[in-house]
């Protein structure tokens, strides 16, 4: 059958079972939006393209499906870039469409023209400029395949307006996409796995260090199984939160710059690190030359470029985390006499001591402190809510003082560290999972970076609870200035903050201000009952800091505790 480019766009989205699209229209997207007008795809009209991209990202993180967003040419595309880079750093499957000026005008500095594929080349897994409508269907199918397979990531398709209008023959396809130059290795080399098991059986102080790859591959259950049969303690990265249940005796909490003492001590003293879907990022290793000096390293990752990039690896295993862990567990099980229950007794005792001596803590007085608020949110939701964060102190408190037991329940911009991510991502998360409570844990700084999406929440009746941990400043930078720049608070203190309650009300949403400890519980109860977006303005202690902390440039176990 003969279809226009725009109709092919709709048909291909249907083929990929896309139910929802986030974006903003524009001049060169008129043909596509005309085709969308009566298409069976729900469209969420954002107020800024960055918001649309983060919504698609949040939707993808919760659902495990590819998130899809669309923006117009030029400024629409450039606004999208922060969202693409965020998804790229955290390996989130997304397909982004951008409008482009007509092919005859490309390169002419036409109105609203930008070199979108050029700009986004290094912040996408792959991108396409469609110059001929005949290739459109193939490109869209490839894009979805690339976005979700291997190490997932965002793929961008730039669509000139004349291609959207051009007509060509279209046939729906049941065929599997084949790309000769792209064949991700998902299985994991059995010989390497056997070597790994041998090394694990000989280790006396091993640690599993799990990252976002566990969540993305759906390998949480296999991770738990591995830890349980080998009795090896587990620490997770920020991206790995929820991939291992917090209530397990074997759980060490998060490691790294704001990790727990015991996770960082365990890493530094370990004789074997089993890295699973994590990438030895600088926030994890601290001073790299002093990182885990006695440890051998097994590294399981789907992306060969992650292996051996920052640290020397003894046993690399390239493959999908879930597949590799399955095989690894089978091998461990076959040799289970090598894994006697009490074989790591001494190590467990040491860790227990570390845990007892250095728990996560904060000053418990009558002041309203963010850690207390997080604990109350945990109690009110029994740990079943989806917690999305902004970036900065709010992100770290959300990680430290709420317990995560399930994968895909903690959404944060881990790699790029994008302030303004949380609120739109929370909207996307709520759409993916309407029956769950969704919280955006925000600071007053980051919430204002995409505050305009309150209108999107209002228009689409999406209920997100925004927890503004309001300290009237850019808290994390202020903390560094306090600790390392002699309290010279250069450009970190706000004096122009709006009344967030009134802002919410202006959008016809709810707002509540909380200034005292005893108001926290009732406010949360009220917010949960409201079933519409609520902004909770918590006026917290201004000089509250995030501890423990490993400052830049020192070894991972040189930790500032904060409280004497």
């Amino acid at each position, binding site marked *: 059958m003969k279809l226009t480019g725009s109709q092919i766009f709709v048909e291909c989205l249907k083929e990929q079972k896309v139910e929802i699209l986030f974006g903003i229209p524009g001049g060169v997207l008129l043909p596509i939006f005309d085709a969308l007008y009566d298409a069976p795809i729900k469209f969420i009209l954002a107020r800024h393209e960055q918001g649309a991209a983060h919504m698609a990202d949040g939707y993808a993180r919760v659902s495990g499906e590819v998130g899809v967003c669309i923006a117009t040419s030029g400024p629409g595309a450039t606004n999208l870039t922060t969202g693409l880079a965020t998804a790229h750093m955290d390996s989130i499957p997304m397909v982004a469409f951008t409008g482009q000026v007509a092919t005859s005008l490309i390169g002419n500095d036409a109105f609203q023209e930008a070199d979108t*594929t050029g700009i986004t080349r290094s912040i996408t*897994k792959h991108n396409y*400029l469609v110059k001929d409508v005949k290739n459109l269907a193939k490109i869209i199918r490839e894009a979805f395949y690339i976005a979700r397979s291997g190490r997932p990531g965002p793929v961008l398709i730039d669509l000139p307006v004349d291609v959207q209008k051009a007509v060509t023959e279209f046939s729906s396809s049941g065929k599997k996409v084949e*790309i000769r*130059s792209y064949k991700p290795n998902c299985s994991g080399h059995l010989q390497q796995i056997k070597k790994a098991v041998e090394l694990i059986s000989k280790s006396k102080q091993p640690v599993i260090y799990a990252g976002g790859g566990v969540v993305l591959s759906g390998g949480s259950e296999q991770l738990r199984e591995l830890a349980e049969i080998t009795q090896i303690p587990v620490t997770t990265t920020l991206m790995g939160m929820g991939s291992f249940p917090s209530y397990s005796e074997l759980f060490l909490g998060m490691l790294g710059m704001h990790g727990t003492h015991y996770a960082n001590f365990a890493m530094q003293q370990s004789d074997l690190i089993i890295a699973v879907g994590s990438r030895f990022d600088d926030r994890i290793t601290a001073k790299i030359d002093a990182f885990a000096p006695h440890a051998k390293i097994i590294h399981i990752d789907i992306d060969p470029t992650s292996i051996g990039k920052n640290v020397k690896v003894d046993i690399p295993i390239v493959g999908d985390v879930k597949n590799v862990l399955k095989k690894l567990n089978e091998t461990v099980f076959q040799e289970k006499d090598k894994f006697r229950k009490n074989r790591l007794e001494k190590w467990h005792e040491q860790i227990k001591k570390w845990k007892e001596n250095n728990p996560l803590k904060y000053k418990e007085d009558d002041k309203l402190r963010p850690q207390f608020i997080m604990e109350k949110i945990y109690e009110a939701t029994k740990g079943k809510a989806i917690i999305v964060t902004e970036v900065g102190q709010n992100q770290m408190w959300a990680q430290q003082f709420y317990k995560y037991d399930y994968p895909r329940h903690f959404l944060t911009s881990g790699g790029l560290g994008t302030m303004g991510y949380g609120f739109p991502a929370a909207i996307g998360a709520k759409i993916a999972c309407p029956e769950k409570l969704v919280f955006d844990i925000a600071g007053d700084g980051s919430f204002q970076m995409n505050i305009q999406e309150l209108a999107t929440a209002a228009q689409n009746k999406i209920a997100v609870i925004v927890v503004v941990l309001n300290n009237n400043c850019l808290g994390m930078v202020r903390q560094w200035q306090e600790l390392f720049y002699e309290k010279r608070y250069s450009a970190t203190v706000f004096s122009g903050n709006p009344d967030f309650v009134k802002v919410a009300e202006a959008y016809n949403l709810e707002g509540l201000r909380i200034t005292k400890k005893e108001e926290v519980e009732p406010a949360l109860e009220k917010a949960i009952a409201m079933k519409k977006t609520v902004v909770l303005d918590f006026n917290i202690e201004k000089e509250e800091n995030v501890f423990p902390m490993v400052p830049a440039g020192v070894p991972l176990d040189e930790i500032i505790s904060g409280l004497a």
Partner: protein
Amino acid sequence: MRHTIVVLVENKSGVLARIAGLFSARGFNIDSLSVGETEDFTISRMTIVVRGDEQILEQVMKQLNKLIDVIKVSDFLNVRHVERDLVMIKVKANSSTRSEILQIADIFRAKIIDVSAKTLIIEMTGNKDKIEALIKMLQPFEIEELARTGIIAMSRGMNKTKIEN
């Protein structure tokens, strides 16, 4: 260490930019880069000459492999192979110097591909050393312009840099 890397890529627009971007994003200098079609017109072959320590090079090879449009990457460091570079040199020549320049060209088995009252264009293929020797010999006559293709390389015998199925 100097490495000659041969990369087979999809013959599509934008691929060169992806590869160049990969090197520039990591602050990696390219000595030379040449691209052309292969026996299969859908595939282009790039020869990239780079210098760097082993760890950085391994990372670059992996990153190249990760690009969606890259089909195959081979490092020729431990592969028996031949390398060629083509150079064109426009050198000043008048009635008194022309015959001496022709003699030099002859010794190098270079070809004269253009002649005018004041200049000659000399074309030669060879490896890096031979080309540099020729340039050195011609410098006293004043080189007006010089263009090189960059190195292309091919493994000897039946070793093929082809796609394996």
